[in-house]
């Protein structure tokens, strides 16, 4: 009896835990670009945003065995990123910095501003709350419940915030010729 137990224990020690590398590379890493876009919104500076994405992906990698296969991995990753960012913010409250890219866009000559740049400028004028909800829902394609999970707010709040954010974006854009051209 004791010998069987010893054998069992030794047998267990010889077994590698499941290697999730392939699954992780297939379902999680392709979302790195979207995570970086969201991290840039939260951090406002590229180096810090990259660190946050790296920390998010490594945290997800360490806990990937807990991820429920078949559910939305992108939403799961965005939740991790938001949680890590919130933890950082609790540790140190700092004033968001204005990125160099934003400065450059503000200084660009009007004739050089493309339609897409105008949209990004209009987006940058929205409140951080409106930017965040639009980025998650409209740009990254997360569902309402998934956005609610990331932001830790009720679904009804996401819906009303999203409606107001779209209205605000349209209102900012309506001051520009771009809107008349696109018919928004």
């Amino acid at each position, binding site marked *: 009896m004791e010998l069987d137990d010893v054998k069992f224990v030794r047998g267990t020690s010889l077994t*590698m835990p499941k290697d999730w590398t392939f699954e992780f590379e297939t379902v999680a890493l392709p979302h790195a670009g979207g995570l970086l876009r969201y991290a840039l919104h939260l951090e406002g500076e590229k180096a810090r945003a990259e660190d946050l994405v790296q920390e998010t*992906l490594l945290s997800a990698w360490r806990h990937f065995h807990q991820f429920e296969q078949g559910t939305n991995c992108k939403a799961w990753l965005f939740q991790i990123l938001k949680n890590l960012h919130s933890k950082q913010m609790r540790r140190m409250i700092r004033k968001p910095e204005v990125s160099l890219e934003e400065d450059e866009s503000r200084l660009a000559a009007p004739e050089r501003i493309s339609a897409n740049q105008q949209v990004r400028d209009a987006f940058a004028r929205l409140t951080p709350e409106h930017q965040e909800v639009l980025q998650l829902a409209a740009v990254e394609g997360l*569902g309402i419940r998934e956005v609610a999970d990331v932001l830790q707010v009720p679904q009804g709040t996401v819906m009303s915030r999203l409606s107001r954010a779209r209205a605000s974006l349209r209102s900012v854009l309506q001051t520009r010729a771009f809107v008349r051209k696109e018919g928004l």
Partner: protein
Amino acid sequence: MNCESVQDLLPLYLAGELTGEELAGMQNHIDACEACMQSISADRQLDDVLRTAMLEHSSDVSGVLQRVHTEMATSVWKRMLHVRSLRFAALAAMVVLTAVLGVSSFRAHQVQRTMALAAADDHYSDLVLLRHPDWAYQPEDVARFMLEEFSQQDLLAAITPQGARFEKVRLCNLGGAQYAHFVFRTGSTETSVFLIPNGQARNRNDAIHLADAGHGLEASGFSSAHMTGVVVGNKGQVQTQEIANRMVGMF
């Protein structure tokens, strides 16, 4: 359902999350109400315009991916070295040796592998989930797209796989780099070709073939003197490697 309740449910409708009676009620109202139909159409277009603008401005994520791959590989070695068995010792030694000899090429390979997986994911989003409506289909739109993005003449005809016909093209973003995503059709089978002119590519990649790129797809990446790209198609149905090899010879 009235206009007010349609506005309340609009975010759910646009996210494709309305079901059952609510969806039917919404649909009936939209069919009869011109104002609500226009409002929905405008919101949808606003989302598309915003998505396109934001994706165009995405940052290159390859540096982060390299660091993540390195950390992941390190954690795998640590795990292997913790296993108290001789049968893994030789393997662990091989892995360490490989790492010493070629860490940088390993990282580059892993990043490229991730790009190929991202391309497969984009193919799945575009063609199975139909997430993106911003395709160029019409000949004049396609001609304008080709003129703006590529300098080579007759590129479209040259990259069309044998026996396939061109269907549509759009710009997409894989890991912070902007690629043109071409779709070709042979019967009911779709083949995606993602191309980025080397002048815009931040990293040159070697050839790679992923027999399983997720979602039932296979992917082959290639890079030649003038072009970097990925070919994606259904596993076993599309000879992605063959198409990629042909592209290398072409550019």
